[in-house]
């Protein structure tokens, strides 16, 4: 299978006060289309920084970042925004839903960046809510939903524009074990049945068990983990 994510000697530095701190040191990474990759590591290891580079939220200071056939390190901020809209769905630890909008309006947000008509947007939103099992909660606002339901809405928002890549930052970090399992099973379904490539940052090794491969980030360096479950 072709690589959907390819990093070559990627370096990322942050400025803290007057100092430049290197948080990723020459990362090389390949991730194939259709993979469910778990990125693990202790706090401050650089795994979220790596995820942000994969999702086009940040740019490297050095090296090549190639995602979905696009050299992200060569794009401007505006170009990256357009690229993200087309290619990436984001799932965050705290769901990051807009509190004033209903579930269906939250899910519709990424479609506002497309040329779809209102009726087509409505159909796609309904389909996405159907996939996550929340069709009956479409009119509810986030505050009227449980944590698990909010994360399902966030997942529906991430998939509604049919991106090639789902980027998940601790998607079960704010959920109880049972609900977390349900969310992880849903991600597995998206990966296996809907062929979404998923890259997930997690602290939780049980969460990583749902991935097809895991990698460890430690002190800014990537180390390979064992291939886990066969797809």
């Amino acid at each position: 299978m072709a690589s959907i994510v390819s990093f070559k000697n990627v370096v990322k530095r942050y400025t803290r006060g007057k100092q430049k701190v290197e948080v990723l040191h020459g990362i090389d990474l390949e991730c194939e289309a259709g993979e469910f990759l778990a990125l693990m590591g202790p706090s401050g290891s650089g795994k979220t920084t790596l995820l942000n580079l994969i999702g086009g939220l940040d740019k490297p200071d050095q090296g090549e970042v190639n995602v979905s056939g696009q050299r992200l390190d060569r794009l401007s901020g505006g170009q990256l925004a357009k690229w993200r809209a087309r290619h990436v769905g984001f799932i965050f630890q705290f769901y990051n839903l807009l509190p004033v909008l209903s579930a269906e309006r939250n899910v519709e947000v990424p479609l506002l960046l497309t040329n779809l008509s209102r009726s087509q947007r409505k159909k796609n939103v309904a389909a996405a809510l159907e996939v996550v099992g929340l069709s009956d909660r479409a009119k509810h606002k986030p505050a009227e939903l449980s944590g698990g339901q909010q994360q399902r809405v966030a997942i529906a928002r991430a998939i509604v524009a049919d991106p090639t890549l789902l980027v998940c930052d601790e998607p079960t970090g704010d959920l109880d074990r049972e609900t977390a399992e349900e969310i992880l099973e849903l991600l597995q379904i998206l990966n296996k049945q809907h062929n979404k490539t998923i890259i997930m940052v997690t602290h939780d090794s049980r969460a990583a068990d749902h991935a097809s491969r895991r990698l460890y980030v430690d002190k800014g360096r990537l180390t390979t983990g064992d291939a886990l479950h066969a797809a």
Partner: protein
Amino acid sequence: MASHFFRQTASLTSTAIRSVPQRLGASLVTVIGITTVMAVLVSMLSLGQGVGYLGQTGARADHAVVISRGATSSLQSSIPRDWLGIASSAPGIKKDARGQPIVAGGLIFQTDAKTIKNQRASMGILGMSSSGLEFWTETKIIEGRRFQPGLHELNISAGARTRFKDHGLGDRVRIRGTDWTIVGVYTANGGFLDSAAIADADTLMSVLQRTAYSALYIVMDSPSSFPALKRTLESDATLQVEVKTESDNNAQATKAIQTVLDYVSYFIGGIMGIGAVCGALASLYAAVDTRRREIATLRAIGFSSGPVVISVLAEGMALAIPSALLGAGIAWFLFNGHVVAALQISFPLVVTAASVTTSIFWAISIALLGGLLPAIRAARLPVATALRAT
């Protein structure tokens, strides 16, 4: 592309405005600040507007005023008495019942008086020649009788009688060492005469030892006679005059006062406006900080920075415009139509559509100035950092 931008902007603006109740405290800072500034600004502007309104009240299109060349209005003008006869022969002047052209000499004079609160003030007196009542037809005697030419008699307006101490019917007013008796009280139509007194011009001129009127007041056959009348009088080599419509003359007479009042209004409004800008700035910074995660999430999804800027500015305007209308409404409720006495004249406070438009323009400016820096901060928000911080 344009539709994307519009959709992004509409969506962001809608969520920003709909989330205002969640930031009620900070938003109220903007609302109260702008409402207060606009209430004060519109109230202050109502002074100047009132003076302007006073100048235009009762001005008739068939009235012309002749002033000396170089004077800006009848208040600074001086017309020798014998010019009245020369001017009377001009074309387009209406004739009275006796077939005489209606041209009145008018002398404007200020005399000292004490208000009912015992404060020193000035009262305007208009001395009018025999045709004066044909020009100022709006004066109606409500008590007593008209003054008699040749006698030291005054008619006083109801407004001036209320304002000044010992200026009732039968009271005596001392002018340059001579006692004048108030023999009648009149009402006019809300113009200058409603805060003044009237008397016979020739008698007043003899007491004041003057030989010139302030201006000549002409009733024309019709408004269309004005160009010919103006051309004739201004081209007459024996006269050094300018001819204006009554409306223009009154506007010039009140312009200086209105300019000063407007200057003071804008100065005070401007000082307060700076405070309101700071309030809006703090409030919108707080809004951006509160919505930090929301903005970062939308940026992550692919929204561009332009709509983010516009949404922050739009939130400021959404707070500012109703605040301006509320402030103007408060000013209108408290002051519109109230008559005040200041600068030797009585005039109503008038809240006009122009004042309300000005307040909205100011409010939008305050919102834009106050929103600009927070909007830039929102647009420059480093998405990855902002997402991590939440």
